[in-house]
């Protein structure tokens, strides 16, 4: 079974890109299972379900969605194997840019749109720089020149990745991602595999439900802004 991890900035078109790509995979007689991780609510599972494939949803609720995601990788793998999937697509929540979901042995795809600004690729960090494939969406509404400059910015942040343009509305370009998935190695088992980039530490009073502002309410791993100047 091939394990595909989808990350990306909010509203970049992760689900739309994957729906088109999965259609191509299904047309090649490959079986696909999809799992969507989100925080409080998602309707993306409905869109996956319309493809007639097994779909699972994981809502992290009061836990950081990326930590929740890592803690559930074995379970997702197990579920997908029960579905006899050739390919499992795991779509992450795509919220904070500090975490990178990429795991060695899994094909990690980062979806970004070229409307986010030319300098933004530099700000995205490990989610973009550790991806195996980078999908750029919404290219049809910016000038060719901006498209080329944006491409170059992405390449500077992640020179190894295969970069592809996909139109999430029409599906143009999705066959390239499909071929990339098909070419990718099968995963023997996810247990023992490593994250490409560590997740941030966060064990403080707010993690366990504290809501009041102020030093006296803060315990555990607390970091303060360095405003420079004296001290």
């Amino acid at each position, binding site marked *: 079974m091939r394990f595909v991890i989808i990350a990306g900035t909010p509203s970049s078109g992760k689900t739309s890109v994957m729906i088109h790509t999965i259609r191509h995979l299904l047309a090649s007689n490959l079986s696909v299972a999809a799992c969507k991780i989100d925080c409080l609510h998602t309707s993306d599972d409905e869109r996956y379900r319309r493809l007639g494939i097994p779909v699972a949803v994981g809502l992290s609720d009061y836990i950081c969605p990326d930590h929740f995601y890592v803690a559930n990788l074995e379970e997702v793998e197990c579920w997908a194997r029960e579905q006899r999937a050739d390919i499992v697509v795991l779509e992450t929540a795509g919220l904070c840019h500090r975490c990178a979901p990429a795991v060695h042995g899994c094909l990690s795809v980062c979806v970004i749109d070229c409307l986010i600004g030319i300098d933004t690729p530099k700000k995205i960090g490990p989610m973009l720089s550790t991806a195996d494939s980078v999908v750029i969406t919404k290219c049809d*509404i910016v*000038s060719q020149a901006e498209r*080329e400059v944006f491409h170059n910015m992405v390449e500077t942040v992640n020179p190894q990745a295969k970069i592809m343009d996909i139109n999430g509305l029409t599906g*143009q370009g999705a066959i390239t991602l499909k071929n990339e998935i098909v070419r990718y190695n099968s995963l023997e088992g996810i247990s023992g595999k490593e994250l490409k980039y560590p997740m941030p530490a966060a064990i403080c009073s707010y993690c366990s439900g504290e809501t009041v502002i102020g030093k006296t309410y803060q315990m555990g791993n607390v970091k303060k802004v360095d405003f420079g100047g004296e001290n």
Partner: protein
Amino acid sequence: MLEQITVLGGLDKKGSPERIRSLDIKAGEVLAVIGPTGSGKTQLISDIEQYGEEETLTGRRIVIKNQQDTGKDKDLPRYLVAQVSQNMNFLIDMTIEEFLLMHARVRAIPDPRETINNVLETTNQLSGEPVHLSTNLTQLSGGQSRALMVADVALVSNAPIVLIDEIENAGINRLQALEILTGQGKIVLVVSHDPTLILMAEKRVVMKEGGMESVLQTTPEEQKMLEGLLRSEKQINLLRDYLREGRLLWQEFWCTVR
């Protein structure tokens, strides 16, 4: 330098082999892609863009002939097809100068100053009110933006194939735009419903139900008709200019301009 691309036929929407099995397009040539909406024009362009893939939806294959054929992928440009379409916008908040310099740097243009001056000159040939290097991209009108895109694609982007997608309503001199692009030795694909643009192409591929149905060479008779079309186009342009300048037309206008 790209010399020629060949599209080897695949399957149409019904899964039967399309009628045209092989279509050659040479550098400097203009090919019109025509057919009703939904007939597969965009898919054809998409197949050409994804020339590196061994498998496509339509089963078409794209063969590229380079002047110095080393057979290596890295010698091919990143973008085989550069596009100018009606839906495209400049979103970046920068002056024309800053942006062109940035694009020229990305493209490793040896003399960026000279190039951006040429881009500006070409832009102003194509559109109405002149723009300046200090003009902000987001202030450009639709026509000015399109003119700058054409000039940039012709002089800065390195894609050897240019796709012009239904720009007949863009408010720029589209016939001159076509000349500028082909003048750079590029292959120009024109998706259009405009008879003048279609006839300005040496040949046209007619799409039907997802397949390439026929390839027609523009006949000498059609070229004569094109001259007539261009003449009336000139008259309409003149008429437009008169109105734009705030002048009144008079009854014998046509007789005078003829």
